[in-house]
């Protein structure tokens, strides 16, 4: 299991290749990457992500451990950035390795659902008109009921 919380950009290709390489017992590797997206009515200039140093790492490790306990996983990778990001930049990625794809896909979805509302990150959108905190969506909270 590897957890990375960093301001710096990560190399998705290199991380995915590194995660997937050298395993002979894992038949399935799933990766998910979140990208800063411009969908508002005002053009998004940047996204600022605040986090809770110390708790963030513990919370991500806890979520990854729960996934490992629930599905048959060979490995888990979580990378999440903070600081100022512009549209098109990658915010985060998760990767799961499992013997079979169902475990890898479900564990990746579980990680994403919990990352959304149980990891201490807060996003702020900056547009030409001003800035505002992203409000947590009810659907994201409800998504946890599934698990």
């Amino acid at each position: 299991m590897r957890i990375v919380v960093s301001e710096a950009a990560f190399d998705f290709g290199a991380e995915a290749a590194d995660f997937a390489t050298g395993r002979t017992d894992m038949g399935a590797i799933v990766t998910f990457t979140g990208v800063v997206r411009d969908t508002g009515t005002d053009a998004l200039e940047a996204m600022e992500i605040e986090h809770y140093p110390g708790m963030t790492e513990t919370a991500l490790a806890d979520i990854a451990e729960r996934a490992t306990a629930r599905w048959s996983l060979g490995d888990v990778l979580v990378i999440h950035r903070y600081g100022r990001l512009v549209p098109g930049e990658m915010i985060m990625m998760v990767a799961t390795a499992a013997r079979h794809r169902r475990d890898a896909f479900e564990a990746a979805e579980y990680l994403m659902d919990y990352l959304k509302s149980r990891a201490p990150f807060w996003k702020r959108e900056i547009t030409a008109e001003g800035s505002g905190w992203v409000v947590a969506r009810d659907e994201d909270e409800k998504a946890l009921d599934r698990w």
Partner: protein
Amino acid sequence: MDVLYFAWVRERIGLPRETVETDANTVAGLVEQLRAREDRYAAAFSDVSALRVAVDQELSDFDASLDGVREVAFFPPMTGG
């Protein structure tokens, strides 16, 4: 103990962290004391249903005990991912 604020809670109160001397037994008791301090605290804590709390860096509840606690953090619902 150390009290930390994040996102709009930090903005409303005007600081990211402070040391608070308190005799409150629970998080809710601490919130009551903070609220009584100044308008900016009253504004930040006007609706605790809009807030989340972490006690010693673990998500917790407003009725959690403060016995032996070193750090309490208040923040809005998280928006990671």
